[in-house]
C-alpha cells in the first residue's frame, strides 16, 4: 500500500496530472461515470488500456431487451448517454413483449457496434472538463493516515502518477482475465485485448476480497457463407421507437433501412457433436473454476442440464451495417476450435459457415459487491467507487446504469452532498444496486424484470416521470430537456382528465365501433376512460367517437392509455409500495454496533455488521437475517430513539 509521495519516489515515476475524479476503464460503466462526473463540473480523467475499444460490445451486438431496455430508458431519463448513442447506432428495433402488457414491454435494438464506439468516443472527447487517455492503471495510491483509507491517486504501468480525490473502478472483465478455447488457454481480455495485471493485487492489498467469475461469447461467422433459406427471418418493427426521451417523437433510425436477424435451430447432429466431445469441454472437465451465469449457459451446458430438450433456438444477428460478420446468439461455447466448427455447421443453413472469430470463455476477477455501500463507494476506502462487471454483473446496460450512479455519487461526495440512492420501487437501477449490495451474487448478475417487485410501476414508458426530476435536481438534465419533460407530463395529465370527463352515448355509430373491436356495445353512456379499461379497446380506436381530441404524440397516447387502462392494478401495486417504503424509511444509523444487540443470532449479527444496511427494509433482504432478528432489531432501534429523546429531555 503506497501513497502518492511514495509512488513518486520510485525511479522513472513522474506526476502526470491532477484531477478530481479518475475513471479506470472505457467500457459502458466507465463512459457513463466519466461523462456524469465531467458534466457535473468535476475535472475528470478517463483511462483505458486501448482507446480503439471505447464502449466496445465484445458479446451480443444489441442493446436493450427484457429489463435491459427498461435500464436504458432509466439511464436516459437520469441524463446518461447510452440511450442517445444507441438511438444513433441502431440498425434494427423491436419492442419485445408487445402482447404481454406495458409492465414487461421492452425495447431492444441491434447495434452497429463500430458506429456505437465512434459515437461514444467522440462524445467523451468533446466533453468539457474530461480528458481521455490511454494507459493501464496497476496500482491505487491511498493515504493510510488516520483510521480510514483515502484515495490519493493512481499509478500507471509507465510510472505515470496521477493525483486525484476519487477513483471509479470500471475495469469490466479485464482483471487477471484468462481466455479459454478448449485446451487452449491464455492470459487475455475480451476481443483479443490484453488482460490487466497488477490491479487485482493492489485491490487485495487494500483488504478487498475478490471472486472469480466466468462468462463467454459465441462464434462470429461470415454472412456470405450462410444459406438463409431454411431460417426464419426476423425483421424490425415497422415503426421503431427510440431509447432516448429526446428522440421519442423522431427516432433517428429509418424504418426501411433496418437489417433483419434470422432464427435457426440446433439439430440432433449438434447434440451428437457435443456429446462426443464433452471430455474436451474445459467447463465440464473442471479447467474453468469461475462461476458462470445460469441464464446464459453455453450450448454444451444446455445439453447437459436440459437433456430432454430436443433442440435450441439460435439467432443470427448482424454486427453492423458495414460488415459481413454475424453473431450466433445461443451458441456460446468453450469447446476447442475444431469442435466449434463442426457444431456450427450442424445447424440448418450453416453447413458451409465460415467462422471469423471463435467462441471463447473468459475468467476474471471481480469484487464481492457486498463490500460496497449503496452509493457504490467501497466501504472503508474513502473516494473509491466501483461500477459495472467488476461488481459482479453482466451486460452493457447493467454496467452503464451503475457507471452513471457511481459518477453522480463520486461528484456528490466531493460536493459534500447526500448520495443518490434509488430504491426498488423507483427504478430497475435501484433493484440492481440493492440486489448486488444487499444479497451479493454468486454468478454474473443479469437484470430480469422478475427481479423487480413493482414492475407495473417501473415501466419503460414512464422512466422519465420516475427519474427525470431526479436527473434534473442532480444537474444532468438541461433546461430544454426539462421544459420538454414538463410539457409532456402536463399534456398527459390533461388528457387523462379529459378522458375521464368526456362521455360517449350509445348510438348506431358507437355500436359499430364496439362491434368492430370485438367488444359489447354500450348500454348506457360511458366515459372514454371507462371504455379504455376494456382490454379490447386502445386509445387510437376511439378517435372516430372522439373527434375533438387533442393531437397527442404516439408516446403520449401510450402513456394516457396505460395510466387509465391499468389504473386499478397500479393502485394495488402502489399500496404494496406504501408498505415497502414504511420499512425502507425505518433507517438504521451507521454508527450502530450490532454486537451490543442481544438476541440477534450470531449469523445475523455478523452479516449485519459486515453489510451495514441503511434501513430495516434492506436488512430484511439480507440472507441469513430472520424475521425474528428483525423484530429484535426493531425493538432495539426503538429503544435507541427513546434513550435519545430522554437524553434530550434530561
Amino acid at each position, binding site marked *: 500500500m503506497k501513497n502518492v509521495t511514495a509512488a513518486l519516489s520510485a525511479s522513472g515515476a513522474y506526476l502526470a496530472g491532477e484531477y478530481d475524479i479518475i475513471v479506470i476503464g472505457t467500457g459502458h460503466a466507465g463512459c457513463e461515470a466519466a461523462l456524469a462526473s465531467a458534466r457535473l463540473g468535476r475535472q475528470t480523467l478517463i483511462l483505458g488500456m486501448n482507446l480503439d475499444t471505447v464502449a466496445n460490445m465484445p458479446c451480443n451486438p444489441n442493446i436493450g431487451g*427484457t429489463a435491459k431496455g427498461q435500464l436504458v430508458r432509466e439511464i436516459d431519463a437520469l441524463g446518461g448517454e447510452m440511450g442517445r448513442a444507441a438511438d444513433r447506432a441502431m440498425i434494427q428495433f423491436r419492442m419485445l413483449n408487445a402482447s404481454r402488457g406495458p409492465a414487461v414491454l421492452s425495447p431492444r435494438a441491434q447495434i452497429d457496434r463500430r458506429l456505437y464506439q465512434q459515437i461514444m468516443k467522440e462524445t467523451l472527447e468533446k466533453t468539457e472538463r474530461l480528458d481521455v487517455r490511454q494507459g493501464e492503471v496497476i496500482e491505487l495510491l491511498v493515504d493510510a493516515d488516520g483510521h480510514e483509507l483515502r484515495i490519493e491517486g493512481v499509478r500507471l504501468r509507465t510510472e505515470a502518477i496521477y493525483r486525484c480525490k476519487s477513483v471509479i473502478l470500471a475495469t469490466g472483465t479485464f482483471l487477471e482475465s484468462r481466455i479459454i478455447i478448449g485446451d487452449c488457454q491464455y492470459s487475455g481480455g475480451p476481443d483479443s485485448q490484453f488482460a490487466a495485471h497488477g490491479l487485482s493485487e493492489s485491490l487485495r492489498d487494500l483488504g478487498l476480497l475478490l471472486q472469480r467469475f466466468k462468462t463467454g461469447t459465441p462464434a462470429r461467422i461470415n454472412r456470405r457463407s450462410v444459406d438463409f433459406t431454411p431460417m426464419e427471418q426476423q425483421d424490425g418493427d415497422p415503426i421503431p421507437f427510440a431509447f432516448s426521451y429526446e428522440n421519442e417523437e423522431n427516432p433517428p433510425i429509418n424504418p426501411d433501412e433496418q437489417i433483419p436477424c434470422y432464427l435457426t435451430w440446433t439439430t440432433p447432429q449438434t447434440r451428437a457433436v457435443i456429446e462426443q466431445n464433452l471430455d474436451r469441454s474445459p467447463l465440464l472437465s473442471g479447467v474453468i473454476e469461475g462461476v458462470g451465469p445460469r441464464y446464459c449457459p453455453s450450448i454444451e451446458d444446455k445439453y447437459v442440464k436440459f437433456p430432454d430438450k430436443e433442440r435450441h433456438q439460435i439467432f443470427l444477428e448482424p454486427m453492423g451495417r458495414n460488415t459481413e460478420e454475424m453473431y450466433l446468439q445461443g451458441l456460446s461455447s468453450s469447446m476447442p476450435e475444431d469442435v466449434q466448427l463442426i457444431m456450427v455447421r450442424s445447424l440448418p443453413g450453416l453447413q458451409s459457415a465460415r467462422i471469423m472469430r471463435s467462441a471463447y470463455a473468459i475468467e476474471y476477477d471481480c469484487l464481492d459487491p457486498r463490500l460496497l455501500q449503496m452509493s457504490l463507494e467501497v466501504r472503508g476506502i474513502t473516494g473509491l467507487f466501483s461500477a459495472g462487471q467488476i461488481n459482479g454483473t453482466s451486460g452493457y446496460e447493467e454496467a452503464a446504469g451503475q457507471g452513471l450512479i457511481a459518477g453522480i455519487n463520486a461528484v456528490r461526495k466531493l460536493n459534500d452532498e447526500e448520495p443518490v440512492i434509488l430504491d426498488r420501487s423507483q427504478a430497475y437501477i435501484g433493484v440492481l444496486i440493492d440486489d448486488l449490495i444487499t444479497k451479493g451474487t454468486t454468478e454474473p448478475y443479469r437484470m430480469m424484470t422478475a427481479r423487480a417487485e413493482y414492475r407495473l410501476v417501473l415501466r419503460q414508458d414512464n422512466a422519465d416521470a420516475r427519474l427525470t426530476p431526479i436527473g434534473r435536481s442532480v444537474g444532468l438534465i438541461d433546461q430544454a430537456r426539462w421544459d420538454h419533460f414538463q410539457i409532456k407530463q402536463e399534456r398527459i395529465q390533461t388528457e387523462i382528465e379529459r378522458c375521464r370527463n368526456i362521455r360517449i352515448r350509445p348510438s348506431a355509430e358507437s355500436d359499430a365501433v364496439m362491434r368492430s373491436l370485438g367488444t359489447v356495445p354500450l348500454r348506457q353512456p360511458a366515459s372514454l376512460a371507462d371504455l379504455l379499461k376494456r382490454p379490447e379497446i386502445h386509445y387510437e380506436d376511439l378517435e372516430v367517437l372522439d373527434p375533438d381530441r387533442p393531437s397527442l404524440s404516439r408516446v403520449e397516447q401510450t402513456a394516457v392509455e396505460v395510466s387509465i387502462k391499468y389504473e386499478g392494478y397500479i393502485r394495488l401495486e402502489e399500496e404494496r409500495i406504501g408498505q415497502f417504503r414504511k*420499512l425502507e424509511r425505518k433507517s438504521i444509523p451507521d454508527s450502530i454496533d450490532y454486537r451490543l444487540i442481544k438476541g440477534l443470532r450470531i449469523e445475523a449479527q455478523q452479516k449485519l455488521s459486515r453489510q451495514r444496511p441503511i434501513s430495516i427494509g434492506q436488512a430484511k433482504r439480507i440472507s441469513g437475517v430472520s424475521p425474528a432478528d428483525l423484530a429484535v432489531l426493531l425493538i432495539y432501534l426503538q429503544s435507541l430513539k427513546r434513550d435519545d429523546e430522554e437524553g434530550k429531555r434530561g
Partner: protein
Amino acid sequence: MNGDYQTVLDTNLTSQDHEICVAVATPPGQSGIAVIRLSGKGAAELIDPVFKPVSKRFPPVFSMPGYTCAVGKIISPVTGELIDQVVLTRFTAPHSYTGEEVIELSCHGSLAIKQSLIDLILSLGARAAEPGEFTKRAFLNGKLDLIQAEAVIDLIQAETDRSARNAAALLQGDLSQQMMFISDNLYQLLASIELVLEYPEHDESDTVSAQLAAGLDLIEQKINRYVQGFSQGRILTEGMTVVLAGRPNAGKSSLLNALANTERAIVTDVPGTTRDTIEIKIDIDGIPVHLVDTAGVRETEDTVEKLGVARTRDVLQSADLVFWLIAPPVDHLQEDQTIMEQLQLQSLVPLVSKDDLNESLALRQAIEACWPDQTIMTCSVLTGEGLDAIRKKVIETYESLGAQAQNDVLLTNSRHKACLDSALLSVRKAREALHGGITWDIIASLVRGSLDALAELTGDAVSDTLVDTIFSRFCVGK
C-alpha cells in the same frame, strides 16, 4: 396500525429484553404444585446462592447439565428461613422453551409460597416477566414461527377439547406447513409466467397458459377451504353464541339454567354483553358455547317496541344460533310470527318450551301451519326432554359451518383470516384477469400480491406490525 405498533414497542421497551425474567408458569390460584420459571443468561448463577441441594452429590446449579434436576431448599438470605423445598430443573440454551438458559422451580402451590419465592428472586436481580414474554423470547430466538407462537396462546386459553386439539395442531406447525405448500404452488405458477415474460422470443405461452388456468383454480379452492374453516375456527377460540329469545315468560331463563346444570359449565353468571342479557359459558361436545338469555326483554310490556332497541337486535343478529322460545297458550303466536319475520334471522329455530303443559300439542300444530318448512323443536325443563335435541342442534350448526375435510387444521385467528382473505382476493383477481384477456404482467403482479399476503401470514415477511399485540395477548408465565 402504526399506533398499536408503537404502544406494543413501548411496553416492550420498559424491559431490557435479555435480563433474566421470572414468573409463575402455572395457572393463578392455589394448587398442589406450581412451577416458577426463570429465563435468561445467568439464571443458574442467580438462583445458586439461595438453593441448597439436599445432597452433596448435586453440583452447583450452574454446573448442572441441561435437562437434569436437583432437590433442594430455598433459603431466604436475609432471614435464613426456609421458604420451600423444591425440585429445580435446568435447561441450557438453546435447548429450552425460550431458547435461553432456563431454570424451573417446582414448588408447593400455595399463594404465599409462590409470592415469597417470586419476591426472593426479584430481590436477587431478576425482573418480573411480562404477559407472553417467555413465548416472545422463544419467537425472537427462532424457536417458534409466528403462527406457532400465536397458537401457544390459543392452547393456553383453550377451554374445550376441540379448541385444544386445534391449537395443538397449529403449534405443531400444521398450518404453517400447509401455507408453505400453497406458497410453493404459487411460486411455481409465477415462475412459468416469468419464463414467458423474460424470454419473449422462446415462446412457450400456450402450455403455460393452460397450466396457469388450472393452477389458479386449484389454489383458489385450497385457500378458500381455509377461509371457510374460519367460521368454525373462530368458534373454537371465541365461542359460539347461542341466544335464547322469545316473549316474556316463554321459559328462557329456566332453559338457560337447565342447560347450565346438565352441561359442563365453563363460566357461570357472566355479565352479559349488555345490561339486558344474561350469559353463561358451557362446553357442548367440545364446542365452547356462550348461552345468552335476552333477559331484559322479558321484563318489558311491549316486546315489539323493545326489540326495536338496537342492542337487543345486535345480540340476535350476531348470534350463531337463536332459539325462539314459544310457550303455550296459542294466543300470542301471531305476535311471535311478526317479530320473527321482522328479524329475518337465518339461524332462528322455533322451540316450543314447557312441552309438559297440555296446550302444547295445539301450539305445535299451529306453528307447523305457520312455518311448514321448519322443523319444530320442543323441550321441557321439567321432564328434561328435548334438551338433548337442543344439544344436537348446536353441534349440527357448528358442523354445518365447516366445508373442509376432517383433518384440516382450522384457522382461528383473525389476523390469519385477514391475510388469507387478501391472498384469496388476489388469486381470484388473477383468475378473472386471465379469463378476461388481461395481459400477463398484471396476472404476475396479482400472483405476487397473493404471495406477499401468505408471507405475512407465516411471518416470513416482516411488516412493521410484526411485534404487534400478538405477544401482549399472553398471560404471564408463558
